[in-house]
C-alpha cells in the first residue's frame, strides 16, 4: 500500500445505543462509538456531512451524520429501513461491531457562507437528520447567526424525529420552531398542514438569509414557489442531494449527476448549482 491512507478501510466502532424513533418502527437512531481512542480524537466532521456505515458481509450504506460536531464522543445516525444493509443494521443489537468510513462530502457551510446570516431550516419527514446536526451546531454557536427559524413536518405526530429535543427547542426564545403534521390527529394541538403551506404562512424574510431545505423532492418542489414569491433566490437556498453510492470518494461513478459527484462535491449544493445540472438525482 502506498503512504496515503486507505480510503476504503472503515474505523472499527460499536453500536452504543439504539433508539426507535418513529411509530412505524422503520426509523432508528444508532449511537455509535469509534473503538480506538486515536480514531475518536482524529474524527472531525461538519454538519451536513455523511459517513459510510459498514457491515462486514452485508455491505456499506451512506448515511447523513445526525449528531453535531459539538456532541463529542459519539456519532448519531438515524436510518430508515429500506434495503439489504439498512435492514441488517436494524436487526443488530447494542454492543455489536460496525465500521464507519468518513466523514465524507462537503457539509453545510456553517463556518463560512452561513455565518452572520438569518437561517431558515426547512425539513420534511426523515430528512431532518443532518439538519438536526446543523441546528444543534448553530445553537451551540448562537452568536454567529441571526434569527433561526425551523419549519419541520411529518405525516403524523408519531413520525416526527427527535420529539424530546423538538420540545426543548420550542421552549427556547432564541429559535423559532414550527412543527407541523399533514392531517389532524387526536392529541395534537400543534400546526397542521404540509410544509410548503406552513413555509408560506411563516414567510421568512429573505434579507441576509439562507434556507437549508431537506425533504422529499415533491416537498422541495412545492416549497420553492412561496419562498420565491417573497423574494428568495436560488443562491440563498441550500439542498442536500442523495444518490446511490459505493466508494464515497468521487471515483466509482454511481452517484454522479452530470460532472459532479454527490459524495465528493456534495451532498450539499445551492439550488442555483443544482439548476445547472441534469435532473439525475
Amino acid at each position, binding site marked *: 500500500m502506498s503512504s496515503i491512507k486507505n480510503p476504503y478501510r472503515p474505523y472499527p466502532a460499536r453500536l452504543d445505543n439504539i433508539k426507535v424513533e418513529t411509530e412505524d418502527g422503520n426509523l432508528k437512531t444508532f449511537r455509535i462509538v469509534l473503538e480506538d481512542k486515536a480514531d475518536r480524537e482524529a474524527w472531525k466532521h461538519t454538519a451536513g456531512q455523511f459517513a459510510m456505515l459498514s457491515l462486514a458481509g452485508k455491505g456499506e450504506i451512506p448515511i447523513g451524520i445526525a449528531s453535531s460536531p459539538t456532541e463529542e464522543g459519539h456519532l448519531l445516525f438515524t436510518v430508515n429501513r429500506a434495503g439489504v444493509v439498512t435492514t441488517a443494521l436494524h436487526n443488530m443489537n447494542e454492543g455489536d461491531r460496525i465500521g464507519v468510513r468518513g466523514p465524507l462530502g462537503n457539509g453545510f457551510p456553517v463556518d463560512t457562507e452561513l455565518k452572520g446570516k438569518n437561517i431558515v431550516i426547512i425539513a420534511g419527514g426523515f430528512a431532518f437528520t443532518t439538519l438536526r446536526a446543523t441546528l444543534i451546531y448553530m445553537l451551540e454557536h448562537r452568536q454567529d447567526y441571526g434569527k433561526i427559524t425551523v419549519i419541520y413536518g411529518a405525516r403524523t405526530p408519531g413520525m416526527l424525529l427527535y420529539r424530546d429535543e423538538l420540545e426543548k427547542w420550542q421552549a427556547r426564545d432564541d429559535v423559532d420552531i414550527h412543527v407541523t403534521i399533514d392531517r389532524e390527529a387526536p392529541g395534537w394541538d400543534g400546526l397542521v398542514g404540509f410544509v410548503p403551506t406552513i413555509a408560506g404562512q411563516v414567510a421568512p424574510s429573505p434579507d441576509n438569509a439562507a434556507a437549508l431545505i431537506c425533504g422529499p423532492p415533491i416537498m422541495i418542489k412545492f416549497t420553492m414557489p412561496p419562498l420565491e414569491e417573497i423574494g428568495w433566490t436560488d443562491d440563498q437556498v441550500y439542498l442536500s442531494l442523495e444518490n446511490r453510492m459505493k466508494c464515497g470518494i468521487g471515483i466509482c461513478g454511481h452517484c454522479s449527476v452530470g460532472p459532479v459527484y454527490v459524495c465528493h462535491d456534495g451532498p450539499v449544493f445551492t439550488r442555483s448549482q443544482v439548476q445547472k445540472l441534469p*435532473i439525475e438525482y
Partner: protein
Amino acid sequence: MKALKLDRNAIGQWLSNMAGERDIYAPASDGPAKGTWTLLTDYSMPEIKPGVPARPVKNFLFPQPETLLKFSIVPTDPDCCLPSEPEENGRKNVVFGVRPCDARSIGLNALACKADTYYQANMDKNAIIGLTCSQVCSTCFCSETGGSPMGTEGCDVSLTEIDGRYIARAMTERGEELLALAESFGKEVTDSDFSAVEALEERARSGSDEIRNPEEQLRKKDLMELYNAPFWQELADRCINCGACTFLCPTCYCFDIQDETLHGKGRRIRCQDSCMFPLFTLHASGHNPRGQKIQRVRNRFMHKMKYFPDRFGPISCVGCGRCVRDCPVNIDIREVMRSLLNFHDMGSVTP
C-alpha cells in the same frame, strides 16, 4: 534515457531475464485465450497481431475482482467484522506489448483515481512495455483523441519495430532498470535508427485526421445544451444496454463494491460496473435517477466527452476502437464525438 536495439532472440532473452523478478503477461494471439492477457511461460517474442487485443490493459489496474478488505464473520472471533487489508504476495508484473492507446488509458484513469490507494498500488505493481503501431486498423482513431500510434505515454519502455528489429526506449526510471536487463546483449541504437523512429512519429503526426484536440472544443460547449441534444434518442433507440462497451473500454473505470462470505470468512471486493445498467443508480426506495435507457446511454458518452474533460482536461477516450468493433448494434463512438463537436443548439431558432 537508455535505448537499445533488440532482435527477436534478444527480446526472448530479455523476457527471460525479467521473469526472474516479475510475472510477464502478453496478449494471446491464438488459441482459447485469444485476445486476453496471459502469463508467459515460454520466453520468446510473443506473436502480437496488429491492433488491440480484445481485453483492455485496465484489467491489471482494476483486477477482476479485486479484494479491498477481508474479515471474519464468526461472532466468537475477537476480530469478528473487523476488516483488514489482504496480504500481498509481493510479486510484480510486466505487461508486455501494450498498444499506445491502452498505455495512455492508465494515466487518464489515474486522474480520477488519485485518492484510490489500490489503483496507485497497481500502477506500482505493473510495469508497462509498450509496442507502437506500424499499422492502423479501420476502427482505430487514437490520433483523434489526443494520442498517437507512436505514443509512449504510460509506457515504462516503448518498443518500435523497424525492419524486423525493435528499438526499445526507456521512458521512466523503472523502464531504465528493466532495459538494463538487456544491456549485455542489446545492440546500440544508431543515428539512422533514431531517424527511422522520428520518421514514423512524423508520419503519425501528419495523418489526415479531421479531428484534432476535441477536448478543447468540447470544454467550450454548454453542458446542458449537449445534454438536451436531439441525437441521444436515436442512439438510445439502437442501444440494448448490454454494457459490452464499458467492459471493453480501457477508460471506463466505474466500479461496484460488494461483500462476499463463505464459511465464516468474508471479503469486500470491487469489480467493474457499468452505467448502462439500471441497477447502477437504483435507490433502495425504488427511485431511479437514470431509470430510462436514454439517460444511461447519454451518461456514458457525456462522461467521456464532456464531464471528464470539464473536470480533468482530456476526453476519457483513447480511440482504441474496441467499442466500435464489438458493439452488437453498431454504435460508433466516433460518430457520437462528431455529433457532439458539430452540435449547435437550434432550440431558439424557429423554422
